[in-house]
């Protein structure tokens, strides 16, 4: 505050700022609305154009559609083979979430509540792995996956996603689990529960917000991941919706109405989920580091 004191402007000026300059000013709202338009208008164009015919996009490139015709969505669904893409994505996302819960949950449990040796070293290793760029291991991993027969399989991709999500998930879950009072599991053990029962019956129900965050972050990551998906799954039958959409959009570059309709279909589940759980999403992605 010493700095501020020396910078103090003359009193009469300060009186003006006390109300106009520091309250919720019109300037703030103007800038924020402008930013909101920058974020939202392109999305609006995507939705607008998904309802138009090719012809209408030619005459009315960015404006609202003249009528709400859902034909593009049906056609995109068929021609983009989207049912299959969604099925593959559902398997990949569910497998990633379950695998991450299992691996990270049990490891975090061991770190937070069990008598695990080398705790310090393991935590350091986790921090190290989190900051390791995927480029460091993707090349040998690719050829290892060829040898193991995991190349071009959904399981192979799920294993990679689980491994990528586990380190930060362990650290995040650990902070949730450390806070649960020890008396709870000791009481359960006295009642004859084994470690597995303590973990699943006592700890999981209390630590579920952490598991939900981990599930959201790892599921979202698996839904949109590109680098591993394009390199490790080449068979069109196995592609998740993201890469099969990429192929579709590159095959029909000029059919913006169809490709935009496919985009809207892909985005809708995400937006709905986000609107229901935006706080958890934002908090999770802000602490879970970065995607993409």
């Amino acid at each position, binding site marked *: 505050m010493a700095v501020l004191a020396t910078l*103090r402007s003359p009193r009469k000026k300060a009186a003006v700022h006390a109300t106009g300059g*520091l309250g919720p000013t019109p300037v703030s709202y103007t800038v924020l609305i402008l930013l909101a338009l920058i974020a939202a208008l392109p999305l609006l164009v*995507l939705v607008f154009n998904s309802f138009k015919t090719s012809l209408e996009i030619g005459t009315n490139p960015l404006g609202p559609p003249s009528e709400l015709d859902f034909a593009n969505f049906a056609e995109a669904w068929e021609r983009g083979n989207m049912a299959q893409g969604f099925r593959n994505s559902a398997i990949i996302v569910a497998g990633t979430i379950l695998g991450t819960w299992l691996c990270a949950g049990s490891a975090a449990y061991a770190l937070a509540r*069990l008598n695990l040796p080398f705790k310090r070293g393991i935590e350091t290793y986790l921090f190290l792995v989190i900051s390791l760029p995927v480029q*460091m291991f993707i*090349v040998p991993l690719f050829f290892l996956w060829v040898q193991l027969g995991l190349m071009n399989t959904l399981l192979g991709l799920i294993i990679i996603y689980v491994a990528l999500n586990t380190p930060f998930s362990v650290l995040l879950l650990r902070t949730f689990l450390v806070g649960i009072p020890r008396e709870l599991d000791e009481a359960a053990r006295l009642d004859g529960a084994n470690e597995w029962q303590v973990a699943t019956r006592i700890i999981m129900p209390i630590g579920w917000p952490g598991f939900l965050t981990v599930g959201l972050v790892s599921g979202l990551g698996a839904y949109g991941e*590109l680098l591993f998906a394009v390199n490790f799954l080449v068979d069109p039958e196995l592609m998740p919706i993201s890469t099969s959409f990429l192929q579709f959009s590159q095959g029909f570059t000029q059919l*913006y109405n169809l490709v935009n309709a496919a985009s809207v279909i892909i985005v809708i589940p995400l937006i709905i989920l986000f609107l229901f759980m935006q706080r958890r999403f934002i908090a999770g992605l802000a602490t879970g580091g970065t995607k993409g």
Partner: protein
Amino acid sequence: MSAVLAPPAKDEATAATSAPRRVGLRRRSQLIAIAFALPALAINLLVIGGPTIAGIGYSFTDWNGISAPEFIGLDNWVRLLNDEALWNALGHNFVYLLIFLTVPLGVGLAGAFMLSRIRRGAALFRVLFFIPYLLLSVINAQIWRNILDPEVGLASALNRIGIHWLDGVYFFADKDLALYSVAFVDSWTFWGFLVVLFLAAMQGIDASQFEAARIDGANAWQEFRYVVLPGIRPTLTFALMIIAIGSLLTFDYPFILTNGGPAGASDVASLLVNRTAFVAREAGYASALALSLSLLSAVFLILFNFLRRGEEN
């Protein structure tokens, strides 16, 4: 597994008295803990740990991914230093970094500051800003391919009102524009994340500091400069770090929008690694390239760790 290892609790109660059995119990509790940590450890070594070590080894070989690798000493590293494609790509990564350090960072800071000063509608703005970051990169790329298309996008809309500035401007196919267009799309998806990140940090600043500033008659800019910026310094350092590393490793948008083209005008390092490894199948050389990228990002990490240490003192 744990069902086998975990004894009935009654045993534990009776064992608590004798010392040798207590040691046995401790060992058993350690074994249980290791069993819990094992799946995470195994999958980590299989996907990350093992291949990372192997990659370091392969970077000194002429491995093609199939036949037995042959040790060739530092050949890959000499080749790497003279590889014009790599320097071209790294130059573009640097431009990417400069772009991200200006517009998205500035907009992120400004947006967060404005958001921290309003009440009504703050949640809605936050959601709107965050949505582009949430969407899949393939979708965001599609949105901008449409808008920036010279035939059926913004250019054609402007034509309709008699403005012809964008006629025949191929944002992603022009060698002078491709890199900037890709970086633009990438930053459009990223600034909202920065807003959310900075906003959380700003809300953590002690309210009494703002009151003191107001009593001292600080205007909005002074409040930003002397209260907010120092208050969010750790987060700012963190943001700089993820921007630096993100710019070095960026893959999605260059891959989707231009695939490095035209003629390498928007090539970046991760695309080069990808091509070398999975198209040309030069696994040995690709490992060296990948390792050099990782080393560069490690340099950033260490640099920012020093910055953070400096702040704490």
